[in-house]
């Protein structure tokens, strides 16, 4: 989606031409996030590893935030902004403030769809110096169905059934297309394509855990711990699972 940039390590080679050094305002802090919308739940999962280059900064830096959203537990919204974590943190903090003002000014909680539009305006507001993040927002819509929206760094967004973002997005998305939306799967008897149905939460959680343990194997920036936040009408539940630490 966008080229990752690693700062050049210091070397002592002789340059054939003058090298110009300049401050580069972005960094990549790794991590991968994944969101899936169900019939009566929405979940946002992400690993907690925080990296720069080939080094681990910390194994446990949760990156999925909850907007409490006065109104009721089912109105909570979970947000993750993955990529350059300073921009991700700044965006989520500002979003939390904007959501709070919304509840004061409108005397009602921010709906997920309104929150999504708000995120677009916030991201596009920095079109000339973007937030270097892939953002995902998840919650329950007005009728209680799971709702997931994902964004590019400058605010292009769409409602989706499921979305992976971050370092290992390219590994996860095809897996999700196949397992959640039953793509390229045919019914053995009729030869017709399988139809995607709403998955129960336990099934989805198994998929998420398997997905993350798989990308942990193959992607150096993913590992340590898996954080999953699940939004249901009872509110937000958070679960942690260990991942391989290599």
């Amino acid at each position: 989606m966008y080229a990752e940039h690693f700062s050049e390590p210091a070397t002592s080679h002789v340059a054939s031409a003058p090298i110009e050094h300049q401050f580069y305002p972005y960094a990549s802090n790794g991590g991968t996030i994944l969101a899936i919308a169900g019939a009566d739940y929405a979940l946002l999962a992400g690993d907690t590893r925080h990296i720069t280059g080939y080094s681990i900064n910390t194994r446990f830096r949760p990156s999925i935030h909850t907007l409490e959203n006065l109104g009721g537990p089912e109105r909570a919204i979970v947000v993750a902004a993955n990529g350059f974590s300073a921009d991700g943190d700044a965006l989520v903090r500002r979003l939390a403030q904007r959501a709070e003002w919304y509840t004061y000014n409108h005397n009602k909680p921010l709906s997920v769809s309104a929150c999504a539009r708000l995120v677009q305006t916030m991201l596009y507001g920095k079109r000339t110096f973007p937030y270097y993040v892939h953002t995902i927002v998840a919650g329950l819509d007005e009728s209680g169905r799971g709702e997931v929206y994902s964004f590019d760094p400058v605010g292009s967004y769409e409602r989706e059934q499921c979305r992976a973002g971050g370092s290992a997005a390219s590994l996860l998305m095809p897996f999700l297309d196949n397992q959640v939306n039953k793509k390229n799967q045919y019914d053995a008897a009729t030869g017709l394509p399988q139809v995607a149905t709403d998955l129960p939460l336990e099934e989805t959680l198994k998929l998420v855990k398997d997905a993350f343990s798989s990308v942990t194997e193959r992607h150096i920036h993913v590992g340590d711990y898996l954080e999953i936040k699940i939004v249901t009408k009872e509110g937000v539940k958070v679960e942690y699972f260990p991942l391989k630490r290599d």
Partner: protein
Amino acid sequence: MFRNSYDNDSITYSPTGRLFQVEYALEAIKQGSASVGLVSKTHAVLVALKRNAEELGSYQKKIIRIDNHLGIALAGLAPDARVLSNFMRQQAMSSKMIYNRPIPVSRVASEIGDKAQKNTQVYGKRPYGVGLLVAGYDETGPHLFEFLPSGTVLEYFGAAIGARSQSARTYLERSFESFADCSAEELVLHGLRALRDTLAQDKELTIQNTSIGVVGLDSPFKLYDNEEVGEWLEKLGDVGSSRGRRQAEEAAAEAAAASAAAEAADTDAPTTDAPAADDEAAADLPAEPIETDD
């Protein structure tokens, strides 16, 4: 208060060292309906009497949530309270962003105190016309501050502002020693009893005119309005003004005495319950205050 030549602007002292504009601002608070606040070791509670300008109109909101751990009750010019509450919300949010902790109650109270003071020392501006009771819970426990247009901010165990608030203050003074160990529920009931004493003749606390705010350890600021107030009023029991209650008690006592006398005397029974009550009512009944926005 008399019109005099030292009350034209906020920046003129009187010969006796008073700032009349600030004092007139305090009068505006007395025109609003009552708000009461009280603290225990674990909670801070606000109760307020809402007023409506017309029977078919909505009741003016009296308690405003500032943050998860903070709320205010107002008396006086409600639009001024709105402006101040917005400012407090901004301060609370930015303080939380910068220091990663909820704003201490004393900090936000002194910030609006300083803001109000500016308007008492600038030509062309008027002092805010609203008093606030700021109730919140922070690292140092529950707190209640009274904010006045002069910029004075003082901390209290129990406070009341607005019309007939002295009656509430009297109740609080009598019972405050028991506040510290009260449960949240007991504290709310104390507040409601104090508020009840500020009611005018023949009025009572209803779900429409009563507002309650509670905050404490492990309990974020919660505002109770309309139906949710019903259960509190039921726990309270008697929702009428204590003046009304006293008169009813006296009337009942007189009637009982009179009927007892009648039985004994067996003559035409003159019931004398009415006159005494009316006299007391006439003396008690204050002129209805001029209706402000509050």
